[in-house]
């Protein structure tokens, strides 16, 4: 499965547009992480627990999007975008969407 956030794929032609596919996830870290983050707010620096959370969420949202694309019989997703929203403290909603397409390699 080719996943890009551009509208075209170099060397490939889009044969068929299957439509919008999307994946979302809302994840939270345990309380210990939140407390650690609170302490980190004193001296600054990276909050690796929350970075991990962001990476996990992004990965899961993408996976769900790709599963949908596979179901539609697509072999690529183009023009992928991410958005987020805050639903509650310590949790993040990550939403990935793109257009599932069937592509063919140019000869």
């Amino acid at each position, binding site marked *: 499965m*080719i*996943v*890009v*956030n*551009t*509208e*075209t*794929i*170099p*060397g*490939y032609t889009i044969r068929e547009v299957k439509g919008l596919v999307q994946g979302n996830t809302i994840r939270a870290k345990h309380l210990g992480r939140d407390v650690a*983050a*609170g302490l*980190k*707010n*004193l*001296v*600054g*620096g*990276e*909050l*690796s627990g*929350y*970075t991990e*959370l*962001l*990476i996990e969420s*992004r990965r899961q949202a*993408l996976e769900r999007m790709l599963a949908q694309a596979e179901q539609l019989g697509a072999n690529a997703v183009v023009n*992928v*975008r*991410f*958005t*987020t*929203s*805050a639903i*509650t*403290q*310590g*949790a*993040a909603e*990550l939403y990935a969407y793109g257009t599932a397409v069937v592509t063919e*390699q*140019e000869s």
Partner: protein
Amino acid sequence: MWPFLLQVGPFVILLVLALTVGGFVERAHFKRLERRESQLRDMLVTDLRTFPPNTASSPCGLVTGEVVIASDYFKSFAAALRSMVGGELRSFETLMERARREALVRMLESARRLGAGGVINVRFATSNIGSQRRKRNAAMVEMYAYGTAVRFKEQPRG
């Protein structure tokens, strides 16, 4: 005199601690960023949506880089003071810069691991993990960068 000192003392100690440790953390981070950026200087980075003409037709993929950075107590205090009179919040500007550069560097590093020569259509986005905490005078930046990693037929110019 003593009750006053006891009241203000912890606050001052926190401020001084945050100023020294936070300042040290920030300088170290900027140094690290510069070193990693100099290693990635040969990568082409653009937010154009179209591929350069010398792009190889091998499959390329989405690359991302994410980071969450906390503000320190001194920065937050300085910003709170500043927002009373308005104007530029310099202490938060460097925080945003650090987050953006770190996210970009991480994205480029993962692109390099894929053997890419550049990243096209780069986008930045922010997330809100500690949104309510932010109101309690403790800012954090959640930044992520993403783009499409590509290989080139020959070395890109520039």
